[in-house]
């Protein structure tokens, strides 16, 4: 038997290659979509972060202080100020969707400050959009604190007669030194892109391979495919995908990462091992899913809706611990969940596989799990 199985693995590999070449849908999904999506989606975040978020400003104070505030805000790369004569016009501009909030400096701001009274300024942001509003809030808050510190500095210098160096130490007794690790600029692109590339690889493999298996059932070639034994059939077909997607993985890491200027802090070899294990897990998983369908079209339709839910529950965009328990269990059944933990650790923070043994073991267990259920399902279908 073992003598027979070796050539049939290669035969099945070649059979799959010829099947894909003849099936334009598989050809599109497997050969064109991964590359096109990787460049297409990748380009969205090529600038990595947003800049020049528009903020309307109304200055009723028209003082040196109000001008200083505006000048500092406008100098921030994150914000672009647009001046309005009154609040109504500024609000209207925000309602039209042309700016993301408004900043109001009321009359008497400078006078209050000079007479040692607290000055109040107002920032209203459109929090219906999270990213621009939170970026605006952080920038303006920082500028107000800095100018506030400047006010204290002048006070200590003038009133208490302290030297600039001494006054500086009084201005901000506790300074917050913020060190965002593994994404120093806290940029959205650097955060999302590595995972996005991995997701493109995963989803095109899942959709393409499950479609191929559904096609075997639809075209009545399922039993012929399983002729050389269930395991041989799974890995014969799977070998083609392992080869093609292994090559895509190599391409993404070497070309797309460079083009998008993404850091790769860990070992390329270890990342290769991780990718290999992921592909080994996805292959039986995709084949199991495909075997649930008798129509290639229906398989494509249903699988099209899997991308967002899978991505949202892996713990990448939303902390795993903040998911409801039932969703955490579902997430644990996806190879993406342990994969993305190890992948992010290697790519973004330079970790080693040895330090990520827990999620690696999880991924290997999922490989066993999907191989087993795929094997059992195919055996059942073979004898039905």
């Amino acid at each position, binding site marked *: 038997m073992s003598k027979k199985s070796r050539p049939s693995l290669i035969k099945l590999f070649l059979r799959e290659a010829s099947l894909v070449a003849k099936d334009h849908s598989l050809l599109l999904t497997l050969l064109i979509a991964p590359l096109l999506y990787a460049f297409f989606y990748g380009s969205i975040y090529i600038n990595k972060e947003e800049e020049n978020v528009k903020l309307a400003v109304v200055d009723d104070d028209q003082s040196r202080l109000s001008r200083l505030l505006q000048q500092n805000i406008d100098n921030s790369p994150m914000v672009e100020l647009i001046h309005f004569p009154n609040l109504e016009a500024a609000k209207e501009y925000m309602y039209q969707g042309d700016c993301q909030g408004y900043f109001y400096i009321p009359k008497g701001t400078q006078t209050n400050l000079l007479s040692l009274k607290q000055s109040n300024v107002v920032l209203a942001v459109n929090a219906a959009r999270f990213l621009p509003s939170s970026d605006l809030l952080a920038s303006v808050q920082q500028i107000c604190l800095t100018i506030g510190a400047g006010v204290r500095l002048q006070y200590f210098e003038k009133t208490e007669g302290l030297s600039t160096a001494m006054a500086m130490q009084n201005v901000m*007794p506790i300074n917050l030194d*913020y060190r965002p690790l593994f994404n120093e600029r806290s940029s959205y692109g650097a955060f999302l892109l590595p995972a996005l590339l991995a997701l493109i690889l995963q989803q095109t493999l899942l959709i393409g391979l499950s479609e191929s298996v559904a096609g075997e059932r639809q075209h009545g070639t399922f039993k012929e495919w399983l002729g050389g034994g269930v395991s041989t059939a799974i890995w014969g077909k799977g070998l083609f995908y392992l080869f093609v997607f292994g090559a895509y993985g190599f391409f993404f890491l070497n070309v797309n990462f460079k083009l998008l200027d993404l850091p790769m802090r860990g070992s390329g070899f270890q990342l290769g091992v991780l990718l290999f294990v992921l592909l080994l897990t996805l292959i039986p998983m995709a084949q199991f899913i495909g075997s649930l369908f008798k129509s290639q079209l229906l398989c494509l339709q249903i699988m099209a809706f899997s991308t967002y839910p899978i991505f949202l529950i892996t713990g990448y965009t939303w902390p795993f611990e903040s998911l409801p328990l039932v969703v955490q269990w579902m997430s644990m059944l996806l190879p993406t969940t342990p994969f993305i933990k190890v992948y992010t650790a290697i790519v973004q923070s330079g970790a080693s596989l040895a330090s990520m043994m827990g999620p690696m073991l999880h991924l290997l267990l999922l490989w066993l799990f999907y191989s087993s259920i795929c094997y059992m399902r195919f055996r059942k279908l073979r004898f039905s």
Partner: protein
Amino acid sequence: MQLIAHIILREWKRILRLPVFYLVMLVIPGLLFSFYALIYEKKDAKHLAFAIWDDDKSAISRQLIFLLEQRETLQITRSVSSEAEVKDLIQKGEILGAVHFPVNMQKDIFSRHKTNVTLYTNAASLVPAKLVYKAVAEVIITGSSGAVLKKLVKTGMKPDRAMALANPIKLNSYQLYNSNYNYQEYLVPGLITVGMQMILIISSMLALNYEWKTNTMQELFELSNGSALLVITGKTIAHLVVSWFNFFLIAFVIFPFFGIGVWEATAKFFLMYTLLSLACLGIGMFISALFKDVMLSGDVALFYTSPAFVFSGFTFPRWAMPWYDQYYATIMPYTPFLDAFFKVYYMNLPMRYAQADIYKLLLFCIVMFPTALILFQRQFNTSKNEQEVQAVAN
């Protein structure tokens, strides 16, 4: 009218009978949309694992730790003793951030020396990193202002004046339309509506060409007297009614069940939803009339619809994208829908603010339906020959 009614009825029967329709149009919406709402059931991320590295062990550091413990966002799970340990724990995913209070922090504050408190976050996980930063920064700013305040009061300054100097420019910030940054309120309506766009296009792209697959094109031809206009009108109405059924599910079942949505804006949501549905149906009909091959049609529809969420600017603004991606975004109906949705739904503004977006959605209908009509009429005319129908079906 009677002919159109027959076509509508016939289409509803097909939708209920054929899995390529009922699974996508009737089963997936309920399951998928409820799942989206369930993911964000906790509304915001709380109790993020956080470590303390206290080299000062003073009354002030204990006070600051106490204030950090009061923040719902943070859950202090570890005590660490070096930067290497912080990095290692962050790498392993055991903590999302850590704060370091340096040696002599209290002494420095009392002796008018500046002290640095270091905050580490795992910025590779951007959402928790931002939340951790916000929580810690608020505590440190409060602590710093408190220290300034104490010093000034000690010098004999009146408390109100000291307060004014400790925080001279008070920023009163208002987060309009989602004051608590509730992720469920923010993401779920967007995910659901982009899901609807996909559902509408992925099902309607089979409305015409699937007739070849089921060998029923001739029957449709006879029923409509060979009029592509009647067929497309009837099928569009049938699909639109099913999409209204899904609107009911979204607005009156899922949103109230999970306690999300802006109830007062439901009517405006319905209007925009209907326009989005019509634009999507127009695109679906166009694809269906263009490709006889249903698989090719499926691939095109999938390729077209799947990037809608990211290109629409929902999570990452369009103005920050390169110009060519901004142009690509305009050829998807979800983009103008989203712009209008933000205004009339999330912000609950009057419909006039969505005027330009409404025109854009109507433009999709004006271009797509007539094009689909011309393409399908040509196919329909050739289908008169029964033999040709059989040949294509086989």
